């Protein structure tokens, strides 16, 4: 059902948005053969009594949904590649989800199109700031929607020219951080 890692990333960002986050940090790092995906937010957080259950596929807080497959599926995929997945409350509120995948593992799903996944989410979430951090063993590359918005004034992020700018910029970052599929 969820076929690539970009899809999981979209799911995590959507969780943060639903938790009322105002600032979401998306971190992708390919270091020492491990791909790490981190989504960290300042949203409502997960209550202590629910935290133990977030990895249960039949647990959900959504009123109209019967099951919440996002996180358990992500954890399963991570573990199948020799990685792991954790959900941690942040000091001062919010949640951090961290998933690791062994990059060279044959069961690692393809990365998918991270740029085409993230840009529409960044551009259509008014009032929410995103920081995207891409890194490998050598470089760290940053994109901040706050910085971009400050320069744009009243021009929205979903303006066609801005969308184009965001896509090109993020693609440069992915290349710079070596987040590219070799196969």
């Amino acid at each position, binding site marked *: 059902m969820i076929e690539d890692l970009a899809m999981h990333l979209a799911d995590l960002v959507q969780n943060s948005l639903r938790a009322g986050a105002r600032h979401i940090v998306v971190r992708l790092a390919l270091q020492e053969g491990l791909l790490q995906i981190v989504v960290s937010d300042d949203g409502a957080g997960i209550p202590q009594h629910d935290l133990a259950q977030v990895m249960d596929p039949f647990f959900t807080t959504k009123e109209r949904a019967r099951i919440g497959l996002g996180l358990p599926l992500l954890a399963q995929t991570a573990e199948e590649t020799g990685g792991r997945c954790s959900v941690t409350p942040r000091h001062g509120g919010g949640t951090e989800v961290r998933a690791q995948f062994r990059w060279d593992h044959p069961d690692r799903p393809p990365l998918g199109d991270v740029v*085409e996944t993230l840009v529409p989410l960044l551009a259509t979430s008014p009032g929410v700031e995103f920081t995207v951090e891409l890194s490998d063993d050598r470089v760290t590359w940053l994109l901040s929607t706050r910085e971009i918005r400050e320069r744009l004034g009243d*021009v929205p992020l979903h303006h066609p020219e801005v969308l184009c700018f965001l896509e090109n910029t993020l693609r440069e970052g992915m290349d710079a951080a070596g987040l590219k599929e070799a196969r």
Partner: protein
Amino acid sequence: MKLEELRKIRERAEAELRLRGGTSRVKIVVGMGTSGIAAGARQTLRALLDEVARRGLKDVIVTQTGEKGLAAQEPIVEIHEPTRATIYGEVDEAAVRRIVAEHVVNGRPVTERVVEVREVKG
């Protein structure tokens, strides 16, 4: 990141905004929950942004929301107009192009994809 590019974009966009002067006529909302994403909502959202930009529709806003509770019919797209809200189901890229052309531009809903229509009382 070439931030100076943004200054030029801003100048052009603000000039365009002054010409138009109006507010948005249509708001389009895409359901981007887990099941929506699994059913292809990313492509739907992208196609919508693309189509709206390509046609230069300045009075249309595209946005997204979480789960819509209509998992069997994802991807879900809602078209909000001043007098009605139209909910579309199973909106793939081809359907996006039809909905934008026939509904958003010409005001005629694409009936075979409509899940629900809600009248909005002004």
